C-alpha cells in the first residue's frame, strides 16, 4: 500500500498536465482501503436537498394563506318602486361621520347627545337603540358620511350597524 502511494506521488510530480487524471485516482485510494463500507456511502446524499425541498414546499403552502380572507357585508339598495312601503313610524337612525383629515372620523348619532368614540362603541349604542320602544332591526340606519372620508371608515360604520343586527342600512345622499 505504501509503495502504491509513493508511485502515485511520483507520477503527479513528473507529469504536469496529466495531473487531473492522477488526482482522481489519489482520491479513490481511501475508498479502496475501506472497501466494505464504501459501497453504501458512494450514493449521493439527498437528505439535505430533500430537507430544503420540503421546506420550500411548506413555505409556499403557508404562503398561499397570506391572501387575506375577504367576505361581504350584505346590502340592499332602496328600489325605485319601493314608494308603496309602509310609512316608517319612527324616524330612521342617522349616523353622521365627519372627516378629521385622515384619522378616525367623528361619529354622531343624529338627535342624541352621547357620541360614540369609536366604532366599537357605535355598535353597542346602536344595539341599545334597537331595544328602545319603537325601534327594531327593520329601523332604517342612514349613514351620512363626508365627501372626502375614506371608504374604510364608512364600511366600519356599516359593519357596526350589521353587528347591531340592523337589516336596513342605507347610504345617505349628499
Amino acid at each position, binding site marked *: 500500500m505504501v509503495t502504491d502511494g509513493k508511485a502515485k506521488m511520483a507520477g503527479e510530480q513528473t507529469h504536469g498536465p496529466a495531473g487531473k487524471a492522477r488526482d482522481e485516482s489519489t482520491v*479513490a485510494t481511501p475508498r*479502496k482501503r475501506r472497501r466494505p463500507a*464504501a*459501497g*453504501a456511502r*458512494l*450514493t449521493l446524499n*439527498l437528505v439535505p*436537498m*430533500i430537507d430544503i*425541498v*420540503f421546506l*420550500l*414546499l411548506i413555505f*409556499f*403552502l403557508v*404562503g*398561499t394563506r397570506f*391572501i*387575506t*380572507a*375577504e*367576505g*361581504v*357585508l*350584505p*346590502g*340592499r*339598495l*332602496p*328600489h*325605485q318602486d319601493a314608494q308603496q312601503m309602509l310609512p316608517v313610524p319612527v324616524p330612521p337612525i342617522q349616523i353622521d361621520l365627519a372627516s378629521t383629515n385622515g384619522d378616525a372620523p367623528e361619529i354622531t348619532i343624529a338627535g342624541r347627545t352621547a357620541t360614540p368614540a*369609536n*366604532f*366599537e362603541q357605535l*355598535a353597542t349604542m346602536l344595539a341599545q337603540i334597537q331595544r328602545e320602544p319603537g325601534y327594531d332591526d327593520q329601523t332604517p340606519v342612514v349613514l351620512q*358620511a*363626508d*365627501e*372626502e*372620508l*375614506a*371608504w*374604510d371608515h*364608512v*364600511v*366600519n360604520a*356599516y*359593519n*357596526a350597524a*350589521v*353587528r347591531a343586527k340592523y337589516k336596513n342600512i342605507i*347610504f345617505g345622499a349628499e
Partner: protein
Amino acid sequence: MTPRRERTGRQVGFNMTPMIDVVFLLIIFFMIVSQVVTSEAELVQLPRPTKSQAGEFRGPRKLTISMVGDGQGGVARRKVGPSVARDEEELASMLVETHRVARERGERLHVVLRADRNIEFRHVRGVIGMISDVGLEFVDIAAEAESTRD
C-alpha cells in the same frame, strides 16, 4: 474489476428521483395556483372594520365591481367583472349591459362592491348610485374577514 465495482456501488441506494420530480411538480403547481387566485380577483386593499361581520357571499350570481385606489383617495382603476372600465360613464354602460343580459336570462344579479379602503366616499357613493339607477337591488360590500386578523 475495480471500475465495475465502483459502478455497482453507486447504484445501491433508494431511488429518489421520481419523488423529487413529484415534489417539484407540487411546488410549481402551488406557486402557479396561488398566482392565478390573486390575479383573478383584482388586488384591492379592502376596508378593515373592527370586529368584521363580513361573511361568505350568499347569492345566486355575483357581479364583482372592483375599485382600485390611487393612494390619494382617488380611483386608479375600475373593473366590472373581468373587464376594465376606463371611466365612470363606461362603468355605467357596462352595468346596464350586464344587467340587461342577466334579466334576459332571468337571473338576479348580486353586486359585490370591492373598493379600496382609502378611496374617498364620494367616488364609492357615485358607483352605488349608478348601481341603484340601473335597477340592481342587492349590493354587498366586500371587507376583510375577521379570521385573518390578530
